[in-house]
């Protein structure tokens, strides 16, 4: 029966080419526009570390003075101070933990063909690499011992390795950073979590640090901090705050392998806040949060406002296209009232007519979906030409490809429901008579 209806649908669509083309065009435009923006949204709100993000948590505490504190309303700070970061790190209450911050280092290449240049850096403790599952192309990460000993070791990205050493195994070689010699112990493989969840102050997609050095060493060498600094009270300004200053400028991440451990860790944070308050360092009552990666991204509204706006706009456009298609289908189906009347008179049930008409709208949807896919490819190509940092990531993956067809088919069937129902209400006798 389906085959027969399919054949009927093709014949009917071919009969009035203009109307059919209009419907297909409307669906294709709506689908194309919404798939383009949905793909961008999908890429931007995706999981930066699939499989791991659920066990990675970002503890937040509130070390500020009591000025401006509103119970229940004041949010804990988005980063930690040096003292709190070190305390939490040394407490070792989580399965893994890393304290880190961002910076800028001057790379002074050994060969004279390259001018010195600035590179984004991450100053971190050793667990960073195991906790975030950073793959290594050559060598390995440094360990806790190197952190302790303030050793001058560095891990570089494969991109920087290509630039400096032509992609060869550079482990063991020297790298001059900010006028100090470091020994390269590892080269990371292809690793670029999007977005850069561990430090959102540098809010960038598709752009990772080139240099990683131990946090302790970076402080010895006096490397420049780059990122957000938030001070209170009489905290001094400056981009690289003093270790005792009341300023938050470091990120602290922990890995907690089970929900029970997460709950226990949150309790620990409350106890820690109470203890610090008793010591007089904290003035506010315990105000803590423990969010995992996706919650943290959500809390920080990482997806750019423009992208959300574009998505809403495209969905609104799809709605207009759908209403338009409903109108056109209504016109098309009602025009065939006499034909449907004949079928009814010959014994076809209302259900059979309904099915036939829905197959017809499904065909429109499929063709429109293909058109929409084509438009989405063009749209994404245009997006990739944008200067935004996320632009290069805008590609259609199989899941979104499937969604496109599902959306097109669903939309057209939805658009067909009302007209098909209306067309099935014809009184066969009346239609036969008027002919």
């Amino acid at each position: 029966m389906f085959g027969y209806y399919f054949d009927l649908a093709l014949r009917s669509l071919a009969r009035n080419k203009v109307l059919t083309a209009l419907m297909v065009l409307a669906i294709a435009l709506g689908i194309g526009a919404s798939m383009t923006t949905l793909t961008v949204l999908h890429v931007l709100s995706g999981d930066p570390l699939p499989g791991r993000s659920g066990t990675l948590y970002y503890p937040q505490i509130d070390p500020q003075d009591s000025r401006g504190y509103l119970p229940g309303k004041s949010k804990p700070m988005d980063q930690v101070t040096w003292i709190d970061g070190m305390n939490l790190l040394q407490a070792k209450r989580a399965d893994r933990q890393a304290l880190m911050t961002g910076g800028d280092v001057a790379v002074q290449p050994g060969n004279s063909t390259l001018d010195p240049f600035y590179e984004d850096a991450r100053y971190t403790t050793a667990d960073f690499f195991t906790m975030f599952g950073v793959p290594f192309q050559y060598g390995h990460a440094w360990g806790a011992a190197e952190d302790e000993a303030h050793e001058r070791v560095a891990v570089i990205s494969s991109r920087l390795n290509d630039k400096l050493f032509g992609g060869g195994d550079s482990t063991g070689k020297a790298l001059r950073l900010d006028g100090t010699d470091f020994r390269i112990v590892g080269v990371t493989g292809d690793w670029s979590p999007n977005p850069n969840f561990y430090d959102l102050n540098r809010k960038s997609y598709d752009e990772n640090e080139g240099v990683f050095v131990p946090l302790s060493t970076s402080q010895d060498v006096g490397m420049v901090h780059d990122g957000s600094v938030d001070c209170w009270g009489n905290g001094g300004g400056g981009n690289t705050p003093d270790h005792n200053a009341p300023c938050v400028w470091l990120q602290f991440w922990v890995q907690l392998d089970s929900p029970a451990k997460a709950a226990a860790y949150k309790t620990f944070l409350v106890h820690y806040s109470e203890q610090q308050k008793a010591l007089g360092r904290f003035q506010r009552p315990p105000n803590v949060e423990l969010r995992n990666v996706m919650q943290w991204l959500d809390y920080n509204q990482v997806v750019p406002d423009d992208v959300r706006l574009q998505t809403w706009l495209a969905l609104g456009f799809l709605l207009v296209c759908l209403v338009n298609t409903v109108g056109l289908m209504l016109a098309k189906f009602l025009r065939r009232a006499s034909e449907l009347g004949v079928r009814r008179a010959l014994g076809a049930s209302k259900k059979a007519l309904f099915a036939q008409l829905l197959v017809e709208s499904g065909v429109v949807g499929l063709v429109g979906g293909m058109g929409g896919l084509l438009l989405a490819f063009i749209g994404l190509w245009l997006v990739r030409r944008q200067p935004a940092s996320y632009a290069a990531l805008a590609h259609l993956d199989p899941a979104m490809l499937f969604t496109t067809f599902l959306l097109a088919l669903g939309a057209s069937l939805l658009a067909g429901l009302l007209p098909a129902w209306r067309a099935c209400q014809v009184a066969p006798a009346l239609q036969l008579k008027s002919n």
Partner: protein
Amino acid sequence: MQIKPILAALRRHRLATLLIAMEIALACAVLCNACFLVARRWTMIQINSGVDESSLAVLTVNGFDPNQAADVNARMLTGLRSIPGVQSATLISEVPFGPQTGAAGVTHEPGDFKNLIGVVDFVLAGPGTFKALGLKLVEGRLPQPDDYRPATSFLPDDAQVLVTRQWAEHAWPGENPLGKDFWCDKMHFRVMGVVDHYARAQPSQYDLQQGEWTVFTPVVPGGSLAGTYLLRARPQDVQRVLQAARAAVPKIAPDVVLDQDNSKTLGDLRMNYFKTDRIMIGLLLGVVVLMLGVTALGIVGLTSFWVAQRRKQIGIRRAIGATRGDILRYFQTENFLIVTFGIALGMLLAFVLNAVLMKFYELPHLPLYYLPVGALVLWGLGQLAVLGPALRAAAVPPVVATRSV
């Protein structure tokens, strides 16, 4: 033209009428809001920076020890001034559309954190910078040699400054801003002059009415004023002069690192800064045009169907004396009625959509004048779309009435 028969006919096509009206309503809501967003971004893009953008370039170096600031400044300024074509090379902390270096909340009383007047950009500037920027002084006086104060941390402790008219009107509405005092924590500032326009470094991050909250602070070079240099040259020379300056940096000061991204002409900086806004405007306008197109096509499709359906009735009307004009006007009036109904619905929707947008984005209310303009556009669109099918209807010959099929 009698409306009653039209309404009677429409009542027999309730579903189709409702669909067109719905489409018009949705189009009206999206049209008004999208145009509103476009207008806001357009206003932002047009912001008057107040400086001679076409004659200016900025050059940024870093990587030197803060203790060396005065020495680096001296070497850089001498070196840059010796480049042919450079009219002036002076020190500045930030330029419009470049990175923001010093924004802080200011108050009417010292140390009063609760009653902020607002967050302003403090632009630290060395001698000669005011003239190089080409700022227009509207009141007060220019900085004199002894107005330049040392700034060791971020700002001088006590300084006479120039403010923009926009900021002065916000901070002291209806008063003469000259000689007025304001504070940033415990640092004291007194207004010595008012400039016409001067955009802050990142105006898009602030409200439209806050894009020029800039405080021009004369500061002695050195300390926190180091590393960023403003070059002035004739407009046709700027690009060449900047290239020459960038190439000269390693020779002038081998110990510093040139910041490639932040050494550009002001024209290029502005171009880059508003790139995404321009794309967004294009996108919004594109969607609006497409949507209007789809809506028009929908009207054409449905009206064509109605004309075909009513061929016989039209023939009869023609046979009993209706002119072609009567038939034409019938369809035009019918479309006008449906579109009017849609617009009425659309205005409500537009305000709902605006309310939703206001909740998620920092947007003000949709100005009321968008609604009549939107209505006019949609009426025009409806009439244009219906013209083709209506003309075809008018062309139906009266003889159709006598045919049985």
